[in-house]
């Protein structure tokens, strides 16, 4: 069992039944401080960061005390010395999701945060270069949002040939 960093407030830490990882639910204000505490606690690496849009699944299970918002940022930390993982899920907001960047704690989150911004429009405060990474720069909308329909743009090779 992972020792709780002193910053984690009670009631936000659950053990996940599926992959036996520890899940933390900090508020936006606690978020960077909590990640920093985990880093000092021996979690050397941030392996993954991604966004989730819960627009069509608002009934997801969360521990009491956590107010669900539409967007969530999920961070996976890894401790090489202790061989443990921890997952941090922060509620990022509804209309204009915004959280602080982890760039100063783990520089390796730079591209992952850009991807989350590109795909979900989550803003990362103080990120050094918050530009799109996968989509073209002039693209409108954020493709992985649930209200972004796929197939909106006709693909040329699917057009039916004209009459002969």
């Amino acid at each position, binding site marked *: 069992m992972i020792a709780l960093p002193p910053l984690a407030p009670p009631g936000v830490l659950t053990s996940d039944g599926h992959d036996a990882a520890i899940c933390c639910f900090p508020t936006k204000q606690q978020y960077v401080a909590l990640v920093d505490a985990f880093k000092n606690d021996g979690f050397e*690496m941030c*392996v993954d960061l991604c966004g989730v849009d819960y627009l069509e699944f608002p009934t*997801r299970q969360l521990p009491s005390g956590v107010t669900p918002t539409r967007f969530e940022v999920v961070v996976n930390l890894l401790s090489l010395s202790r061989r443990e993982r921890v997952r941090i899920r922060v509620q990022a907001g509804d209309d204009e999701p915004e959280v602080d960047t982890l760039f100063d704690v783990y*520089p390796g989150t730079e591209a992952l945060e850009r991807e989350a911004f590109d795909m979900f429009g989550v803003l990362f405060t103080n990120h*050094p270069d918050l530009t799109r990474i996968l989509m073209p720069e*002039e693209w409108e909308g954020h493709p992985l949002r649930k209200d972004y329909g796929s197939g909106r743009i006709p693909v040329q090779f699917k057009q039916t040939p004209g009459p002969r």
Partner: protein
Amino acid sequence: MIDDTVRVAERIDLLTAETSEGEQGLQSRASTSSGQLRREVGAVLRLDGKTLDPSSIDYEVRDDETMIINMGPAHPSTHGVLRLMLELDGEFVLRTKPVVGYLHTGMEKTGEELSYVQGGTNVTRMDYLSPVINELSYSMAVEKLLGIEVPERAVWIRMLMSELNRVCSHLVWMATNGMDLGASSMMIYGLRERELILAFFEKTAGLRMNLNYVRPGGVAADLADGWQDDVTVICDTIHDRTFDYDQLLTGQPLFRQRMVGVAPITAEEALALGLTGPLLRSTGVPWDLRRTMPYLAYDQVDFDVIVGTYGDNFDRYAIRLNEIRESIRIVRQCIEKMPSGDYRSQDPKVTPPPRARIGESMEALIHHFKLFTEGFQVPEGEVYSAVESPRGELGCYLVADGGAKPYRIHVRAPSFVNLQAIPLLMRGGTVSDAITVISTVDPVMGEVDR
């Protein structure tokens, strides 16, 4: 009078507008923020005593004496469509910025529209050099959510196929790396040996690449009769030929000059950047998920985790060459220890009824039809499963809402994260070193862009 629409040398803006990626590209130093600048010169560390103040970065040359050039997206050494923007002082690289996304096809969005049964065909196309391992990561995530057990034989078949796939992927790396450095005979040899494995894949799964062989609940088909002989031949042949590669490359002075001591990286830098796989192990960190967080039956086989010392190009080469030998060692143990039994779970939820039953039982027919049209439902929850791919930690983060399709599927692609090391590795080297850096980082663009 210059025509506004004709691209001529006097109108450079017209020449560049067509390929510009706007803010995503490398900007002039004056219009780059200090944090971004620090990243482009590869100063990633925030550790005590190693913090680099951007105002103290010694550029040696003035802004107007350098040149920003594009390498890629169609450069042959970029292994696909990776575009690098380099700021050069003569032949030396000052700043680098990778521009990606040219192969983005929205596979994570597609994954939300395919059922769990179909999902395997989607993820297998991400890292097209290690399809089996992609499927494995995805299937393990689905199985964790479903809470089903995979039969012993399926576990060992998965392990056998993963290791053959790892050999296959490293052989392609050896081949393309040889080609990048001008050793074109290595190119031919690497692809020749890979053909043996692809032929075995075809015999087992029906396809050479993008197999969709590992599925939630087990694997698609049992190994073909006489597979032990096929695999033994593959192991013997490739193991012998790795010593030919040694002769061809390892001691070759020209090869060594391009590799030894070029583009080193330290363990702290690698950890800070989140690098995994051979890049991390080359710095001496013995981190291999097969050993440190065993999945499948990797705790029941004997193998060594290969680590380097200096973190340079040569270490990364040596690690991959020796991992081929270690994987072959695991494959040989798989042949010996392969248990008998089912190759897929008999849980009717995920496994269709056998073909013979469909002809005689109405229920079996309905069940078969439902499974392949609607798919099966996965209970609510979220899960992260990670496996060791040839390029590093391949993770699959899955959110299920109780329906037959994943609510969100995110793939933690090792190449995508490893690309962040490129500015650091290239700083101060020449353009020809840049080629070896791209090669030894080994990005697969299908996985980077997804």
